[in-house]
């Protein structure tokens, strides 16, 4: 035990002396490892944030919901109305057919808002989605955040004015409102003003979890059959697929990035370790001549590599946390999403892959030294 302590003290002295003598070699190793780790961490964080963004979107819109938007048919073309075409769906979920006006309405403060026109077939869905919908006494209603509820807002649409009551948007309608104020006008009132230019849409929430994908497939088939040339069908079901794909891409990127980090660490740390071993070869051989095993001496190089890689890993984590918000806000991620309080992709428990890569690379980088240590003492010492 005493001899091991003495050897450890000597080898620590050897390491610290080398670090003091050639700080450049230490700084080069650490800074390159920090840069590589930082790149890996930021790449990984980018994927994690993108996954969270999709998950949030899915959560916010609801996994069982979908929206179908169609473009108006060409002149002379005939096709059935969406509201009638998919009416049977009303029995299996929330069925809300509506039309979006191409022109915008204007609030009293000058803000432009989209206009949705709904028919009688949409009333059951609206009653279900909006509390007290049946009691609303106004020409129209305005779904808006940040306005006092039940306030009567005078909204202008072309030359017409609608006294609309403010309603707080129910979360389920995010697909329709897209988190912006929207004016809802009943079709009866709208037809009276004679505006034209609308996009037929359908919002649907399936009652049965997991059935939406099947419903979408059927709808697409029907739309093709009925001659709908241009339509847009959006659903979190597609985002689930995107999310799966993104996760698979992340795994591939981690593997490739990890291999890249590992390879560079092996080359750089290995070259410097071999260089230092050659400078130190006589002292090492002398130790061996005392009967010390090569393993103890190899551990010195392994410990040095792992120590520097550990330091680089720690610094990279700290640095990544420091620049995280700036980098990802710049990359266009949502401001709430990029806060570490919301999601911290640098937790030690999530970095096992990187730690594993560094550990393996650190070990492989000293393999040439291990081989060198197998050289007989008699060939190193005169």
């Amino acid at each position: 035990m005493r001899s091991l302590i003495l050897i450890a003290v000597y080898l620590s002295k050897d390491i610290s002396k080398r670090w003091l003598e050639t700080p450049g070699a230490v700084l080069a190793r650490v800074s390159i490892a920090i840069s590589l780790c930082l790149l890996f961490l930021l790449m990984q964080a980018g994927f994690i944030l993108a996954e969270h963004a999709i998950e949030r979107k899915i959560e916010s819109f609801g996994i069982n919901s979908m929206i179908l938007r169609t473009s108006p048919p060409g002149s002379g073309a005939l096709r059935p109305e969406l509201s009638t075409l998919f009416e049977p769906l009303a029995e299996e979920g929330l069925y809300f057919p509506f039309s979006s006006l191409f022109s915008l309405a204007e609030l009293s403060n000058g803000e432009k808002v989209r206009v949705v026109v709904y028919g009688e077939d949409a009333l059951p869905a609206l009653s279900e989605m909006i509390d007290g919908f049946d009691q609303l006494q106004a020409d129209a209603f305005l779904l808006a955040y940040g306005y006092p509820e039940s306030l009567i807002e005078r909204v202008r649409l072309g030359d017409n004015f609608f006294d609309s009551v403010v309603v707080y948007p129910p979360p389920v309608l995010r697909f329709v409102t897209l988190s912006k104020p929207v004016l809802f006008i009943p079709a009866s009132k709208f037809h009276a003003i004679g505006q034209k230019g609308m996009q037929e849409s359908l919002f649907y929430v399936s009652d049965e979890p997991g059935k939406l994908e099947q419903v979408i497939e059927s709808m697409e088939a029907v739309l093709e059959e009925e001659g709908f040339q241009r339509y847009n069908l959006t659903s979190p079901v597609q985002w689930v697929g995107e999310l799966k794909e993104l996760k698979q891409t992340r795994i591939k990127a981690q593997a490739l990035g990890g291999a890249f980090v590992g390879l560079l660490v092996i080359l750089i740390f290995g070259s410097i370790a071999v260089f230092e071993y050659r400078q130190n070869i006589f002292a090492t051989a002398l130790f061996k001549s005392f009967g010390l095993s090569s393993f103890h001496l190899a551990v010195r190089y392994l410990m040095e590599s792992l120590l520097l890689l550990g330091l680089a890993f720690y610094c990279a984590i700290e640095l990544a946390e420091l620049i995280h918000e700036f980098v990802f806000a710049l990359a266009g991620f949502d401001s709430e999403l990029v806060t570490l309080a919301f999601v911290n992709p640098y937790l030690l428990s999530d970095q096992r892959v990187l730690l594993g890569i560094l550990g393996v690379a650190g070990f492989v980088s000293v393999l040439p030294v291990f081989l060198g240590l197998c050289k007989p003492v008699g060939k190193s010492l005169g």
Partner: protein
Amino acid sequence: MVRDKTVTQPDAESKTVSCNNLRFSYGKELVFDSFSCDFGAGITLIKGYSGCGKSTLLKLIAGYLSPKRGSVKLPLPWKKPTKKFQREGLGFVFQQLNLLPLANLSSNLNLVASLAGMSGRATRERRDFLFDRLGLSELKRKKPSNLSGGQQQRAAVARALMKNPPILLLDEPTSGLDDTNTEVIKNILSDELSEECTCIVSSHDHRLEEIANEIVDFNRRLPVERHFEEMA
């Protein structure tokens, strides 16, 4: 290339270091072929021209090199050169670079003693005794880089003697040393070695002949033509 058997001391067989039928080469350059030799207790001086294999033989005995064929037999309890033998039973002085550069003289000796399993007290006593005998007491806190060549060589001898080894191998211990330093080393070798210690010294230095119990001259086994080649 060296062949044949030379020295035997059958009366001390149990303490004999035996080289049996050794074959060794550095790449294609053959140094020993079927070399056999026994070394008994006492000091054996190996003489010979440069490159005849004196240092190689010491390294083979120490286990620092492995023979291509043949074996080295050591006295009990080791039988053959192993790490344990190197830690506990062997003292070796190399031609150069004998001391760990980052450790002072005391630490150099302590390390060897601790590897040999010596107690702290025994280490201190032995170290101070050797330092005193070799005139190094004032230098024990100094690092090798602050010592002269002679002081370093004396320290190397002290390190080799530290564990009072049954087998002591010295490779050119006095090369380049003045008479004073050589005398100090000669004195300690003749005074401090136990009767059972097998000490093999490889050297050109005639000054060491007077302390040798036996002299092995590798030159005698060299063909005359090779002598001329070596001289040229």
